[in-house]
């Protein structure tokens, strides 16, 4: 069939040129630059003591923050969709604050709040709990940054649950917990995992909100993006490039994981519709 609408060549051509110039070529430049290193040299940099410690900090804190967000995000999404309370629309808009608030502002604010004289840190200090300038502070910052992902991924899915499904389960004698565990949770699980992975992926690369609250002690509270910056500041461009390649590979894997999860969710849905018709 002949294409009726105009502009296919122009729009696709512009898209591909712009994408290549701004994203694809610069990224391949990173890989090209690191090819100046032999595999052994690359391995030595990527598995240096400080690098390994920074992966541990970045992964550990991101994982913990994403888990916190998955748990509380599920509750928040459920409450926002299913229950009504005064000021709900305002609260719903506020969920996007971490997307809208510049990371540096989040960073200095959280550092001030959780310092031992801050509004929150003041109450934690007598309990022997130090948050600011420790790895715990990194978890707090990453929880803030990742908060909207789980909520925003879950909300439409919870809205789409058909009440008949729950009614059927209840009619068949399931308790509310059994209905949730056996009927509702499997339906929202792909979205929960997608939100978790998005929050985790954002947390791994996050820089601005973390550096103010982290304390940035090498081997203890130094995240990988900060290690890249400190290598750059010491004019170790090659070292920074090697670590950036590691991070880029992780980003790709996480992007693939998100795509896979979305494909899983879409196909499940299609399977269900097929069974019904």
């Amino acid at each position, binding site marked *: 069939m002949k294409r009726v609408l105009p502009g*296919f060549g122009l729009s696709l051509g512009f898209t591909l040129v712009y994408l290549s110039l701004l*994203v694809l070529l610069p990224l391949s*430049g990173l890989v*090209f630059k690191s090819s100046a290193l032999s595999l052994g040299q690359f391995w030595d940099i990527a598995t240096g003591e400080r690098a390994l410690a920074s992966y541990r900090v970045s992964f550990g804190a991101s994982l913990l923050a994403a888990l916190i967000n998955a748990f509380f995000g599920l509750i928040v999404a459920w409450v926002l969709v299913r229950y009504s309370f005064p000021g709900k629309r305002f609260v719903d*808009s506020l969920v996007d604050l971490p997307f809208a608030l510049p990371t540096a502002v989040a960073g200095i604010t959280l550092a*001030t709040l959780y310092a031992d004289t801050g509004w*929150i840190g003041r109450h934690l200090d007598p309990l022997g709990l130090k948050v600011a300038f420790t790895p715990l502070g990194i978890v707090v910052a990453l929880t803030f940054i990742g908060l909207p992902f789980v909520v925003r991924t879950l909300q439409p899915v919870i809205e789409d649950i058909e009440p008949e499904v729950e009614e059927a389960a209840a009619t068949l004698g399931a308790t509310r917990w059994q209905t949730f565990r056996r009927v509702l949770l499997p339906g929202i699980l792909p979205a929960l995992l997608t939100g978790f992975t998005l929050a985790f992926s954002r947390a791994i690369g996050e*820089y601005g909100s973390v550096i103010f609250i982290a304390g940035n002690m090498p081997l203890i509270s130094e995240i990988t993006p900060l290690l890249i*910056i400190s290598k750059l500041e010491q004019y170790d461009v090659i070292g920074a490039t090697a670590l950036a390649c590691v991070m880029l590979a992780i980003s790709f894997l996480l992007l693939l994981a998100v795509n896979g999860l979305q494909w899983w969710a879409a196909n499940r849905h299609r399977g269900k519709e097929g069974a019904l018709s």
Partner: protein
Amino acid sequence: MSHVVARRANTEPRWLRLTLTAVGLGFLFLFLAVPLVAVLFQGFAKGWRAYLDGLAHPDALHAIGLTMFIAAVALPFNIAFGVAASWAVSKFDFRGKSLLITLIDLPFAISPVVAGLIFLLIFGAQGLFGPWLAEHDVKIVFALPGMIIVTLFVTFPFVARELIPLMQAQGKDEEEAAVSLGASGWQMFFRVTLPNIRWGLLYGVILANARAMGEFGAVSVVSGHIRGETNTLPLHVEIVYNEYNVVGAFAAASVLALLALVTLALKTLVEWKMRQEIREQRAELPPERTE
């Protein structure tokens, strides 16, 4: 009667509803409301005068101007790209389409620090084009052009990502009708497509603008951190904060927090407008086409 029983079976007992609401709102209060109040409060910790002094400092004013300038230059390019990409993706079929959609999202998956670094590797002194640029006395990194380029990179997906699902859902019937009635390509675009996508487009632009003005990591790598020259407002916040000028830092930060609040308000407004428009379209459609 049975309906009432079923309704009741569809929700949690009252005590659990209250507990979940308290836990959810408590979490949001601690992680969102308290920080938001704290930003605005800290700037005023030493009174109005100190706040205004922090804000009216020439470096702060310059940083505000530079931040707005960078966003104003970067956004039109990404708007043009977003519209072109979503036109190609949503109105035509071609091979590799889903790969293209994934690649458009790529900048979101990449750490801001890595985003800054890749342009340093191209345009920096030791970079691919470094020697050539030095020879011709062109400065890109540690100068304004580099800061604009990384801003383009980090805000790259926003507009396309809003428009693609919207335009896919709208289909191409209206545009095809316009063309078969003799409209030229641009007439069709400005009279049919643009009015249909205006709220989605605005939504993408609002989010892209917030990111462009607030970006820290990527811009930090390619900015020379030269006061009064290559400091954007987020970078200014960092420098002043690291000098233990807490009031000055929060005075500058409060401007960015205000920007975030305006962004959230506009975003909510546009979402409301979009929902309203969808309802109106549904109402206009003949009944057999509503589903």
